[in-house]
């Protein structure tokens, strides 16, 4: 005999699938970011080309998640936590899609500067990519597991990425003053670093959604704006 123990078994299953999907999309973005930074450092044009082209799959995943969310909102009449979760899922998916664009942008920068000699070692860029993707990984884990403590802690790590960006920016500016002929190339590298700095900022937005789903409080987490002070120090 069929016994119904959970009155929303089907809906809960669909919500769990959405969580799996957002984790898959997150992995795609993490991989693209790490590959793009690595391709820049190792001058691997093939790898950069692959990241550039594969962004379409991230975009496709985003559209699928958005479509599934809208479908559930339309058909399941979500309330309270459920509606907060689905609204946040739409937001998180959008954030990930933009992060995918950042990775694609970094790949594009490699494709532009290609074999031109580097103006500066790009160690910071790889470090920034590693830190930002680690933050993203933790933030998505916190989002699907309703882990408020982690969601509140992750934005603090944004300072590490900001600090790396500031260092990198400072050194490149000095180099540009020394050798004005490298300004174009150096500028491209600054853009790559800026993309990663923005990515870490967007991780904070994901943490804000985790807080919203679990508390109903929609608030901006005050993030450090140190990167704005570059050049003023």
């Amino acid at each position, binding site marked *: 005999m069929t016994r119904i123990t*959970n*009155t*929303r078994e089907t*809906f809960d299953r669909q919500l769990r699938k959405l969580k799996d999907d957002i984790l898959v999309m997150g992995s795609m973005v993490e991989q693209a970011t790490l590959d793009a930074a690595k391709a820049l450092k190792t001058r691997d044009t093939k790898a950069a080309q692959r990241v550039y082209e594969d962004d379409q799959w991230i975009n496709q995943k985003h559209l699928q998640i958005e479509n599934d969310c809208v479908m559930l909102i339309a058909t399941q*009449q*979500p*309330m*309270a*936590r*459920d*509606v*907060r979760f689905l609204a946040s899922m739409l937001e998180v998916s959008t954030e990930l899609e933009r992060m995918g664009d950042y990775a694609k942008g970094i790949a594009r920068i490699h494709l532009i500067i290609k074999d031109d000699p580097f103006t500066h070692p790009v160690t910071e860029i790889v470090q920034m990519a590693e830190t930002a993707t680690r933050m993203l990984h933790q933030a998505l884990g916190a989002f699907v597991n309703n882990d408020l403590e982690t969601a509140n802690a992750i934005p603090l790590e944004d300072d590490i990425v900001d600090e790396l960006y500031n260092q990198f920016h400072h050194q490149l500016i000095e180099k540009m003053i020394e050798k004005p002929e490298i300004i174009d190339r150096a500028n491209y590298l600054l853009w790559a670093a800026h993309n990663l700095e923005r990515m870490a900022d967007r991780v904070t937005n994901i943490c804000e959604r985790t807080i919203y789903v679990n*508390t*109903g409080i929609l608030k901006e987490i005050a993030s450090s704006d140190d990167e704005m002070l570059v050049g003023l120090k």
Partner: protein
Amino acid sequence: MLNIKPEKSPAVQANSNGSEYAIEARELSIYYGNFPAVRSVSMNIHKQKITSIIGPSGVGKSTVLRAFNRMNELVPSARAEGEVLYHGKNIYDSDVDPVEVRRRIGMVFQKPNPFPKSIYENVAWGARINGFRSNMDELVEQSLRGAALWAEVNDKLQQSGLSLSGGQQQRLCIARAIAVKPDIILMDEPCSALDPLATLKIEELMRELAKDYTIIIVTHNMQQAARVSDYTAFFNLDDSGNRTGILEEFGDTKKIFTNPEKKSTEDYITGRFG
């Protein structure tokens, strides 16, 4: 059938005050014999707003609604404790005429109950015995339009109200309630017999009516409560095991449906119960 007297009760009339609340329930408990159906309900119903009462079956939603116009007294063995203040006056005071209370606090029931009279008379009857002297045809049309029924019955106003379909009969009852221009309208699952389109029409009508009247609606349709009401009261069983209802949470509808305070409210409105 209620014996509604045309004259107004001085006790009720004299006590209108400037309160923002149409009804204030204070520690209201309702018993059927020795059984406490609902225990210690305190809630303020805002004037000219729509308040919905939601909750699982058997928690006393309709009992509370009926207590707001002393309709429970028609049930043998029912008795109320506590106070229901209407314009600052306890409607259970001995000097208050329950018939007058029921005229000023009207009711639309879950099951349609038209009189065995013509459609026209169903609407006109209450107004007529209340001394309505103006254009009765206009009042009937206006009330039937308000209940989203006019288009279906305007060419057969002299036919019996009982000849209508169940859904039409319910809308006729709504027209009848509107026609006597009450102060407060209590609605007990008024749309449960209506199709989705007629339901939406009634909900739009409720929003219109709320400009002049206070509306309290009991509904099992949570989307309806979310769509139509300004305030929502969630009733649930207490933990005594006696199947006694309590007011679990009461507040702004937007808050209740997006971020309720209590887990039991959350479980109910997200459908995770039972």
